[in-house]
């Protein structure tokens, strides 16, 4: 091929390059309901952005979205004025103790990425109510935020119970807890809700639900130990029969060991921080 051809081809190539259309990648109309929800941002949105999205990459969805929750349940949206008290409490009593104990990266990488707030409880057909649910370690739905009062210790503990429970699931799904935990007590049953709390505790289960499976047992232990503190937990253990006390102490040791080995966290120090945070509310 002589030079002339090559030049011509280059010319042709460059011309055709110039004349090719410039494609605008954005669709000319935003598709409704795709690409995220938009609304005019208010002070509450800014607060959530500054306190949860920026530091922890956690989205807090407080505006009601039917498709984030059970479609066959009667629910109501959260009150706007409850959002900050609820989320501030969560930050102080759940995120900050972990952050201080295990470092910022720990909570950033493991925290669930979305909180969905619902005003009422979820009423189930069997007469129970649901206070919180978690989906695959990614999303936590918190119910009854409209009744939340940071001054009521029972309310705070009930909400924290859910969050500690779900977060502990994320932890053991990331690094499994010691196998021997499953063999301390062996009376796990699917009909756990037919037995009283006293009955569960006399068998070495910290709550009724703990009796449903070793996984739930493990996370319930962590949750109760963190919300009740060392003193509260000891009181529960000491009120149980002797055989159960042994089981509780073995479970406690494994929880402490797990936190040390898997996450290099001093559990008792975390427990103390958590208590201080709850008491300070």
């Amino acid at each position, binding site marked *: 091929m002589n030079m002339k051809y090559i030049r*011509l081809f280059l*010319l*042709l190539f460059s*011309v*055709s390059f110039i*004349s*090719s*259309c410039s*494609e605008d990648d954005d669709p000319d*109309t*935003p*598709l*409704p*309901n795709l690409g995220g*929800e938009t*609304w*005019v941002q*208010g002070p509450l949105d800014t607060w959530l952005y500054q306190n949860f999205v920026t530091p922890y990459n956690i989205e807090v969805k*407080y*505006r*009601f*979205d*039917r498709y984030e929750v059970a479609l066959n*349940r*009667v*629910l*109501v*949206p*959260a*009150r*706007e004025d409850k959002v900050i008290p609820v989320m501030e409490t969560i930050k102080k009593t759940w995120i900050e103790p972990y952050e201080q104990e295990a470092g910022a990266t720990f909570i950033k990488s493991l925290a669930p990425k979305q909180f969905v707030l619902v*005003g*009422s*409880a979820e*009423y189930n057909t069997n007469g129970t109510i649901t206070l919180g649910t978690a989906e695959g370690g990614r999303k936590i739905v918190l119910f009854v935020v*409209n009744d939340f009062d940071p001054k009521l210790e029972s309310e705070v503990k009930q909400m924290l119970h859910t969050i500690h429970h779900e977060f502990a699931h994320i932890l053991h799904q990331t690094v499994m807890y010691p196998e021997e935990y499953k063999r301390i007590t062996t009376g796990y049953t699917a009909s756990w809700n037919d037995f009283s709390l006293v009955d569960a505790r006399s068998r070495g289960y910290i709550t009724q639900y703990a009796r449903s499976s070793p996984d739930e047992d493990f996370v319930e232990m962590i949750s109760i130990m963190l919300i009740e503190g060392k003193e509260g937990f000891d009181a529960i253990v000491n009120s149980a029969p002797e055989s159960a006390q042994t089981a509780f102490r073995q479970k406690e040791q494994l929880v402490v060991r797990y936190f040390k080995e898997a996450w290099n966290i001093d559990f008792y120090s975390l427990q103390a921080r958590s208590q201080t945070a709850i008491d300070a509310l």
Partner: protein
Amino acid sequence: MRKIWLLGLLIVSMLSACDKDDNEVAPGERPDERLNQVLSEYKSQLVNAEYGWKATLFPEGGAGYSFLFDFSENDRVITRSDINAGTAAPLESTYRLKAAQLPSLLFDTYTYLHILADPDATKSGGEWGEGRVSDYEFSFDSVSPDSIILTGNYNDSRLILVRATADEASNYISRVNENAQTFENINNFTSYFKQLEVGNQSIDIVVNTDLRTITFTYDEGSGVRTFTTSYYFTPEGLRLLQPLNVGGLVITSLNEMQYSAFRNRINLTVNGTEASIQETSSPAYVDPQVARTFYNNPPNGAYWRTVNGFTVEGVVDTFNVGSIANLELITLYIQASPPYDGLIFWTTDGKFFGPALRSRFTDDGRIVFTYGGEFGTTPEQAAPMVNATREQLTIPEGYYVIRTGPNTYDLVSAKDGKTWISFQ
């Protein structure tokens, strides 16, 4: 020749530059564009009403409630309502317009509207887990410049918005509330029986001010009939959801209501004619069969249950049965053989006690109980409450039996109409 060929190639290559628009499969406005346009039109209509919108919500579960909404461009809305005494003050929350199957108006944080939908029965006054079967997400049904009709996406409640005037913006809810308060003075009447007197007709009424239902009992000559409907309040008065047809009269609303505390009477007008609601000691119409129907049909085949015992002149549980130690249940036990019924108190420790009764029916539709001994042994602590209840229950005049629902009845003292007990 070669040059021409190459030039041709050049021209062709320039012509081949793409024109994007030719690729459009279906030319014209896209569905998404149309949808977004409709949503923004709806929003600007809501926002641009200078004095906001007065609204009436008809929950699928019944009744009606008035609202005044003031929508802002920044997706926020200020609400006032007549749901209860606390809802007249303005409350700000958020709203959104969104396409969910149909273009919808979502009230997506809590405001007064949500009280009716709240599954917490202590907030809505409805059933646990159900609320008053209401909505807070609505789709647009029909829109005209001054009115918007919406339907609830979840329960088919109806919300009707009407553009408010400057005057209404300032006093719509207070005027509605004034009528609600006037009418709800009916709860101060000490007699069980209330009558609506209009023209020469007397109509018995039973009102539930919490659920906003009213039951009319009347007789046009062809037997006693009852008619129940929901109502709501307007600045003019009380409006029935379904009109009452009685004696050639069609009643859709009670207007110009005024309460006289001295006479325990509400004066009003019906279709421009003066009328009144007042208390009476006995009902105008009694269905002679209803006492037997009550007696023969306890809901579980064996007994009726009362929660609060007797109400005397509006004071619930006057005889304090609620203070009986370990009380679990109070039942009116129906037992034809051996022929003793009983008002029996059951305690959580498995004991039961209370008076044995013999029941009879009068021709004018009353039920009369006579005392016939004791079931079990009444504990000392419970004796005053049980004895007071027994003495009241066995008054010689007996009781009118009023059906208040599919499976609920009130027994009202035929002596003076000021004492009653509810059974379910």
